[in-house]
């Protein structure tokens, strides 16, 4: 607004207005008495509280880093290409022979089938709970009761200890008295799917709920059916959140031991292919357990653990990239 430093300083209209405002402002004497008491004390408490919060944050990060760091550093001693590509030798000693290749393969197969089963099922259930069941709320009859039972069930399932799922899977799929699938990829995959189903349902439900109502109204007003609306508008808009849920489930399957201990068996030999559903196997997390507790090969357990941790980190990074891409695409950037 001003003409800069050059030239004589003249009084502009703005200056005049400002001067008036200054004159009209109450002087110090007229000012209301302010509460000054306790201000220093409050500032002190503020500083102390923030110091404590800062310390807690640092401590949490330090603990996590030392766990991850310890395993990775210890594991690095045995980690090399050969370790990743040779099957476990199964011996008792921490000798040089034997790697972890088959456990990687088994884990991949297991993750594949778990997600193939639980992914579509969980997403569909979430769509049902939000898009179809919600309007039933407040009504009487069988369906609303069923819906609240399902919702309650999902919440309970999410909190059930994993070994309970394992027991269930063992009793229903593995045991010869029921389906008699014995220790196998299919027993493990179906039980694993039960384990992660609540994770996928809840994440998808939250993501679907967060889709603006205006999208649904626009779609229905254009003569789309509820299903078309759910499939073509709601689902794409909820995709970032749904992907997050699915990736969390992948992480859960990779890191789970108890469930697969009682359903997948533990043979070091991997199933012949992803379709070899009747063969047993050993996932990476199970391998860590066997190495540490049965064969006492701690260095190899650390090596496998390091691979496990790095895989989880990698998956999470990948998820961040993908869901951020999707989200920004949805926002039109």
């Amino acid at each position, binding site marked *: 607004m001003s003409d800069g430093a050059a030239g004589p300083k003249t009084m502009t209209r703005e200056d005049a207005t400002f001067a008036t405002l200054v004159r009209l402002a109450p002087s110090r004497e007229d000012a209301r008495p302010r509460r000054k008491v306790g201000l220093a004390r409050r500032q002190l408490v503020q500083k102390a509280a923030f110091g404590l919060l800062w310390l807690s944050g640092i401590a949490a990060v330090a603990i996590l880093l030392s766990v991850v760091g310890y395993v990775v550093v210890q594991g690095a001693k045995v980690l090399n290409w050969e370790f990743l590509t040779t099957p476990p030798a199964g011996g008792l000693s921490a000798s040089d022979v034997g790697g972890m290749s088959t456990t990687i393969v088994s884990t991949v197969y297991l993750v594949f089938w778990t997600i193939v089963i639980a992914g579509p099922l969980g997403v569909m259930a979430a769509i049902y709970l939000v898009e179809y069941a919600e*309007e*039933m*709320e*407040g*009504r009487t009859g069988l369906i609303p009761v069923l819906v609240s039972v399902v919702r309650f069930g999902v919440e309970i399932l999410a909190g059930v200890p994993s070994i309970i799922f394992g027991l269930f899977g063992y009793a229903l799929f593995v045991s010869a008295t029921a389906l008699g699938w014995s220790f196998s990829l299919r027993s493990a995959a179906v039980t694993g799917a039960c384990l992660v189903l609540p994770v996928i349902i809840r994440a998808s439900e939250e993501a679907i709920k967060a889709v*603006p109502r*205006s*999208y649904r*109204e*626009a*779609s*229905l*007003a*254009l*003569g*789309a*059916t509820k299903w*078309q609306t759910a499939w*073509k*508008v709601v689902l*794409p*808009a909820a995709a970032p959140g749904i992907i997050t849920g699915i990736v969390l489930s992948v992480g859960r399957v990779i890191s789970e031991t108890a469930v697969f201990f009682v359903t997948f068996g533990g043979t070091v030999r991997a199933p012949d292919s992803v379709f070899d559903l009747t063969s047993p196997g050993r996932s990476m997390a199970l391998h860590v357990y066997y190495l540490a507790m049965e064969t006492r090969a701690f260095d190899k357990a650390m090596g496998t653990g390091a691979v496990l941790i790095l895989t989880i980190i990698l998956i999470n990074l990948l998820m961040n990239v993908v869901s951020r891409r999707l989200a920004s*695409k*949805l*926002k*039109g*950037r």
Partner: protein
Amino acid sequence: MKFEDVKLETKQYSLYYGDFQALRNVDIQIPRNAITAIIGPSGCGKSTFLRTFNRMNDLISGVRVDGEVTIDNNSVFRMDPVELRYCVGMVFQRPNPFPKSIFDNVAYGPRSQGVRDRAELAEIVERSLRGAVVWDEVKDELNKSALALSGGQQQRLCIARALAVEPDVILMDEPASALDPVATLKIEELIQQLKKEYTIIIVTHNMQQAARASDYTAFFMMAEDRAGYLVEHGRTDQIFTNPQEEITERYITGRFG
């Protein structure tokens, strides 16, 4: 007010949200290929009334209706709501394009109805965008996200999206209330053009908008129990210069509401 060529009609139409009555005994005729404005204070049931004609109120649980509502003398309550919405399009208060490309937004309705042919879709998209006077602004970036457009462009895109379904009736729920004055004027001009081919009902809070953009005006009020009812319905110039009811005059001159 009675008309010769009636497109939409309600007879003793009432609507309840649970125990609360939102509309009471509304009798109105909406003439074909004309613009009817619905005015009235907040909470008098204007929007609820508008959503009657494409049965969007069905989406709210606990809604119950009474009386009759017809389109071309067919009861809307006996029609499949999906089919009804092919004939009765809607434009909302806030522009609500899908997070998809401009093309996919406009093609959404026809695709939902099963149109798959790429050339046919392209033709529908162009015609609709031209119809909504937004073609020249977006024709070179049909693959761009609709969310990247300005608010006024988004609203005209939403009108184009409604036109693509080829409805007879377009319901507009305060279509310009979220827009700046220039964009508002564009929308009003557009509505004037559309009335040649479409029956338009527009809910508005803006008296000037109702006065300048509509042929007929219906004034709604709420009774003491807050149920909305139709006070007066007539030619817009008559409602604004010579209202029959005192309460209408008080409302349009801004003495309440």
